[in-house]
């Protein structure tokens, strides 16, 4: 095993991954939209696992209120753009991968161009509108959308645009959804840590083809009770 493969030794030992899975990871291209609470663990674990090309998209800067959950950043980066530090942090952990940083929001104008360069899109966003945009773009371009969202002590994950369900299956009425009052910004750091890690795990499953990823399904977790459900979003699962 060469030095490059040595870092992956512990995961290559898994039957579900093996050397074949590691090669698939190396070839995979994953776009993470939003590198905040969810995006931090998603990016860290995918970079660690050796996903060959990772795109990071966010136009936000680091603030002090981010630090309790956005584990990519430190006090030194407060006030500075997130994506560049996120890129540096990932490359300092794994210099063998390629990380692209886009210091911009996903918009109707750039969505197709950005998504075209990737095989999977992972959700680290913090609003309904961008999720509709990711879903519509992924559905049109045939790219799986690894959805995740949190609210306080609750979270949910699903693999959309890979079977028949999209974000519109979950939230059919866009106008109603966008018209809802903002649920507030209260959250503990462990909520996105858990939910983002589940999203990263789904990406690994999809790339390496193991287990039963949450295609057309929604996994939910309530961290008050640890109650968890898997809900079918289409007739086909």
């Amino acid at each position, binding site marked *: 095993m060469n030095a490059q493969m040595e870092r992956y030794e512990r995961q290559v030992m898994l039957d579900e991954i093996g050397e074949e899975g590691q090669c698939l990871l190396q070839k995979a291209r994953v776009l993470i939209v*939003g590198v*905040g*609470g*969810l*995006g931090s663990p998603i990016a860290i674990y995918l970079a660690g696992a050796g996903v060959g090309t990772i795109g990071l998209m966010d136009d936000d800067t680091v603030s002090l209120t981010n630090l309790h959950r956005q584990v990519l950043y430190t006090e030194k980066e407060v006030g500075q753009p997130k994506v560049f530090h996120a890129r540096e942090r990932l490359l300092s952990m794994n210099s063998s991968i390629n990380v692209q940083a886009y210091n911009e929001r996903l918009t109707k104008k750039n969505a197709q161009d950005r998504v075209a360069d990737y095989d999977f899109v992972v*959700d*680290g*966003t*913090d*609003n*309904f509108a961008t*999720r509709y945009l990711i879903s519509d773009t992924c559905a049109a371009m045939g790219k799986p959308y690894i959805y*995740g*969202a*949190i*609210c*306080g002590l*609750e*979270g*949910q994950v699903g693999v959309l645009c890979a079977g028949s369900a999209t974000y519109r*299956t*979950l*939230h*059919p*009425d866009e106008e*109603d*959804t966008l*018209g*809802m009052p903002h*649920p507030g*910004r209260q*959250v503990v750091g462990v909520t*996105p840590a858990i939910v983002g890690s589940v999203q990263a795990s789904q990406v690994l499953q999809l790339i390496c083809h193991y287990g039963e990823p949450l295609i057309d399904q*929604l996994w*939910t977790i*309530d961290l008050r009770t640890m*109650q968890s*459900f*898997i*809900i*079918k*979003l289409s007739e086909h699962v």
Partner: protein
Amino acid sequence: MEITINNKPVTTAATTLSGLAAEMALPAKGIAIAINNKMIPRTEWEVTDISEGTHLVMIKAACGG
């Protein structure tokens, strides 16, 4: 009759999902309901019956990240 909502027993007089939503004064937006782990679109709540022992899951819309 008794049903369960998120694994907790609940007594209700409602016989449809929309009746239950009214009885519980659920908000008009932002709640999804699944029966037997299958999502029921809001447009079908009126014609979706609930009966003794129905297992129901209620999920709040989430948009944080």
